[in-house]
C-alpha cells in the first residue's frame, strides 16, 4: 500500500514549494483546517493522518514500528518520497514537531525549514531539565485514556473507517472528529510522553520557527526556550494564544507568525 493512501494524504494549493502539516497526539489533520487554507495560494499544502489517527489505515498499525517516534518519522519520509518533495516546509504540531525534526534528519534536502507549534523534546522532568510532568503523572494519563473512548465503540468502528473523507460527517455523530482506536491512542500516548529527543535538537541545521503559547500545560514556556537554545538556527515566537492548540484557538496569529517566517 502506498504511504499516500495509508496516511490519508490530501493535497491542495498550487505553489511550487510544498508545506506539509502534521497533527499531534489526540487529533488528526482536521486540526489544520483554519491554518492550512491560508497557505494554499503560495504553497502546495500537504495534509495527512498519522497511522492510527483520523482516516489512516488502521490495519497498517504495527506496534513494533510505532514503538518510537522514528516509525512515524519514516512514514513522513515515505510520503515525501512518494510526492517527490524537495525543499519543502514541515509544520508540526506538538509531538509532530519532533517527528518532523527526525524526518528532516533522515531525508536531508526533503525539508528546507521547520515550523514547530508547541514542541517538547521531553515531557518528563529530568534533573535540571523541566519538562512539566512527573513520570507518575504520565502513568496516570495512560490509565485515564481508558475512561474516554472518544466516540469509539466496536459498533461504530466500521462507520468511522468507511468514511475516510468525512468532513461532511456532521453532528449526527457525537464527537465525530479526532476519533482514535483507544488501544492505538494509548500506545501513541505512551510513545509521545515517554519520548526524549533532546539530543537530536542540536543536529538540526535548517531554519526553524518555534511557536510557543503563553500558557500551555503540555509545553510550558521553559520548554520552548530550551528548544530554541538547542537548535542553532531557530527563531522563538511567543504567541498571545493560550492552551496547546493555537492552530485552532488562534489561527490568525499562527498564520501571521508563519508568513513572517516562510
Amino acid at each position: 500500500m502506498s504511504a499516500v493512501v495509508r496516511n490519508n494524504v490530501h493535497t491542495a494549493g498550487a505553489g511550487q514549494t510544498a508545506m506539509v502539516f502534521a497533527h499531534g497526539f489526540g487529533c488528526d489533520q482536521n486540526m489544520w483546517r483554519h491554518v492550512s487554507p491560508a497557505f494554499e495560494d503560495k504553497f502546495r499544502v500537504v495534509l495527512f493522518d498519522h497511522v492510527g489517527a483520523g482516516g489512516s489505515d488502521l490495519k497498517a498499525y504495527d506496534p513494533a514500528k510505532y514503538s518510537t517516534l522514528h516509525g512515524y518519522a519514516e512514514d513522513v519520509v515515505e510520503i515525501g518520497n512518494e510526492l517527490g518533495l524537495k525543499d519543502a516546509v514541515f509544520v508540526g504540531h506538538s509531538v509532530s514537531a519532533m517527528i518532523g525534526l527526525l524526518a528532516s534528519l533522515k531525508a536531508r534536502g526533503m525539508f528546507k525549514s521547520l515550523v514547530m507549534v508547541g514542541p517538547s523534546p521531553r515531557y518528563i522532568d529530568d534533573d535540571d531539565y523541566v519538562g512539566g510532568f512527573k513520570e507518575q503523572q504520565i502513568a496516570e494519563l495512560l490509565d485515564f485514556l481508558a475512561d474516554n473512548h472518544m466516540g469509539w465503540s466496536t459498533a461504530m468502528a466500521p462507520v468511522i473507517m468507511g468514511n475516510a473523507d468525512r468532513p461532511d460527517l456532521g453532528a449526527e455523530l457525537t464527537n465525530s472528529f479526532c476519533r482514535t482506536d483507544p488501544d492505538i491512542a494509548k500506545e501513541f500516548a505512551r510513545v509521545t510522553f515517554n519520548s526524549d529527543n533532546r539530543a537530536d535538537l542540536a543536529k538540526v541545521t535548517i531554519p526553524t520557527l518555534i511557536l510557543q503559547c503563553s500558557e500551555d500545560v503540555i509545553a510550558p514556556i521553559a520548554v520552548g526556550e530550551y528548544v530554541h537554545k538547542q537548535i542553532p538556527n531557530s527563531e522563538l515566537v511567543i504567541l498571545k494564544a493560550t492552551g496547546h492548540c493555537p492552530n485552532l484557538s488562534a489561527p490568525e496569529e499562527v498564520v501571521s507568525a508563519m508568513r513572517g517566517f516562510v
Partner: protein
Amino acid sequence: MSEPDHIEEDLQDLYENAPCGYLSLRPDGHIVKANQTFCRWTGYAPDELIGRRLHDILNIAGRIFYETHFAPLLRMQGFFNEVALDLVKKDGAAFPVLVNATERTNAEGKPQFIRLTVFNASDRRRYERELLKARDELKAFAGTLEQRVAEETVERLRSDTALTSQREEAKLREQFIAVLGHDLRNPLASIIAGTRLIQKSKLDEKAEATIIMMQKSVMRMASLVDNVLDFARGRLGGGLTLVPSSQPLEPALQQVVDELQSTHPESIIKTDFALTKPVHADPVRIGQLFSNLLGNALTHGLAGEPVTVTAKTDDEFELAVCNAGDPISPAALERLFQPFARGEVRPSKQGLGLGLYIASEIAKAHGGTIDVTSTPELTCFTLRMPLLR
C-alpha cells in the same frame, strides 16, 4: 384536576440548583460562572472558582486530555459530549464527572464563551472501570487460551505424524523380517531334503558320517536363523507371536531330544517326562525354547556325563535341563539372558548369543520364567510357567 395546569418555574433556581453542575468559561478556559450545584459538589465557594482556569480543577491527566482532545474537538465541531474527567475537589479528593460542552459563538463565528454541563459520574465510572477490567482479564484469558489451543494442536499434529511414520516403519520391518526368514530358510530346507535323499542310497561309512555332519550344520544354521528372526521380530517388529494350543507337549519335547541326540550321538540324554495335565502353550515355541536349553547343555556339559531333562505338571509346568561341568561365572549369569550375551568362557563354542534371550522371551510370552542355578557340580536351567493362561 386538583393541581394547576401550569407551575411557574423559577429559572434562577433551576440554574443554581439544577441536578447538574453548570460552568461557563471564556474561550481561553477561565471560569466566569458556576452554579450552586457545582460549588456544592466540588466544595469551592463561587468566588474561589471565578477567574481560575478549568485546568486548575482537573487532575494532570485530565489537563493533558482537555488540551489534546476536548479543546480541539470543541473548536472544530462546536461541542463535545460525554467526556469523562476527574475534577479535583477543594479537599483534594477526585470527583469523577461526565461533561457535555457547547461553544457559543458570535455572528462572525468567533467563540464568545463555553458552556459546560457537569454530571456526577462516580458510580458510573466505578462500573465502567470494572467493565474495562473484566474486558482486559477476558482478553488476557482469551490470549492464553488461544495460545494453549495452538500449542496443543501443534503437539497433536506432531505426535500423529510421528505415530503414522512409526506404524509405517513397523510395517516395513515386519515385511522385511518375513521375506528374510523365507529366503534364509528355503535353501536350508533344500539342503536337508537333499541329504535325506542321499542317505537312502547305499553309502560307505565316511560318506555317511559326512552327511550327518552336514545335517548337524544345517540344523545349527536353521536354529541360528530362527533365533535371529525371533530377535528381529521381538526387537524391531511386533514381538514374539504365539500359537497356543492344549495339545500334549511331550511329542514336541521328544522330537527335540531325538533331533539333538542324532546330531550328538556321543552324548547321553536322560529324560523324565511326567506330563499328566494339559499345558496351554505354543508347542513349537516351547520346542524352540527347549532346543536352545538342551543344545547349550550338550555343548557346554562335561563330556561323558549325562544331560538330564525333567518335565512335570504339578501346580505349574516345569521343564529343567541340567548338566555337569564348569559353573557359569556370576558375571556371566547376570547377562545371560541379554541378547548377544556370549559367555566369556570358550567363545568358540557359542553362537550369536541370542538363544537364551529368545528362550527367556518365549518364557515371558507364556507368563513364565527361566531360572538358572549353577554350582561346580550341576548347572540347571528351569522353565516354570502356568498350566493355563
